[in-house]
């Protein structure tokens, strides 16, 4: 393998392992390392030595290991979902209890919403959202005894809305749990 191919292959693998970084940061790392390798080879030639690309690449170490040093700050914890930056400080003191109760709470609400959504499909008269008389409160109900004079809101729209909300909350819970999990290990 020629010197040129060796360097090209090294940078190709490095670039692959740096894919966790955003593209411009990864490109800059590659550009700097390439510049260092080419400068070092020139320097060896100027000193009358035989250019030794492999020795220079050995100094950088395996591409995967080198890339890990660049991305390790990103791997210290799964980044929280957008808008949940505060979780960074919460997760420092995360316990198993918090982790499992968060899971139970999030997935519980999600399941309930999906059941309401599906329930409306099979028992349209029993499940729904009603505005109580005088419009002072909204009731999500599973009952034969509907409040007198109350007016049903949403109707069959409750099915997609409840299911979508349920799925959304489940995904959000999953994201939060992933962010918390790294602190448990």
């Amino acid at each position: 393998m020629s010197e040129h191919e060796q360097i090209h292959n090294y940078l190709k693998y490095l670039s692959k392992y740096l894919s966790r970084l955003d593209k411009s940061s990864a490109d800059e790392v590659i550009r700097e390392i390439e510049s260092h390798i080419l400068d070092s080879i020139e320097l060896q030639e100027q000193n009358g030595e035989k250019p030794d690309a492999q020795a220079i690449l050995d100094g950088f170490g395996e591409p995967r290991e080198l890339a890990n040093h660049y991305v390790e700050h990103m791997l210290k914890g799964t980044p929280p979902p957008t808008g949940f930056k505060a979780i960074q400080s919460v997760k420092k003191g995360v316990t198993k209890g918090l982790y499992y109760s968060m899971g139970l709470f999030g997935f519980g609400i999600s399941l309930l919403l999906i059941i309401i959504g599906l329930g409306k499909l099979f028992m349209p008269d029993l499940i729904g959202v009603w505005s109580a008389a005088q419009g002072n409160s909204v009731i999500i109900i599973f009952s034969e005894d509907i409040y007198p004079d109350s007016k049903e809101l949403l109707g069959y729209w409750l099915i997609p809305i409840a299911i979508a909300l349920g799925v959304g909350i489940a995904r959000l819970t999953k994201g939060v749990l992933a962010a918390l999990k790294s602190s448990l290990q």
Partner: protein
Amino acid sequence: MTKQENSNEKWDVQLRKGTLELVILAALKERRLYGLELLKLLHSFETMKITEGTLYPLMDRLKRDELVCALWHQEGESRPRKYYKLAQKGEQKLALLTNRWRQSVEEIEYIIQNPGPQPIEPKGD
């Protein structure tokens, strides 16, 4: 490598773990250097022969922590190089680490200079 050299190397590695950041910040004080220059500078000292694989990710971290800033610059016909220099936060950190380093060296030296059997009396007490 002889046993003595091996033991020296181990000591150097241990010591560098805590001091490399200070060394890099000090090397960049009032000068700007690109990676290869910085590496050559460090290699001119016996106890600071770090590898490229250590230097570059460290520079990336120092830049992320806003202790150094980096700028691509092309001089004459040469290829563009990424030059590093101290940022304001880096200068403050350098002053802080320099003080702690000097205090550590003084204290270690004091302990070395005061062997037993007399009890050692910490300075300043």
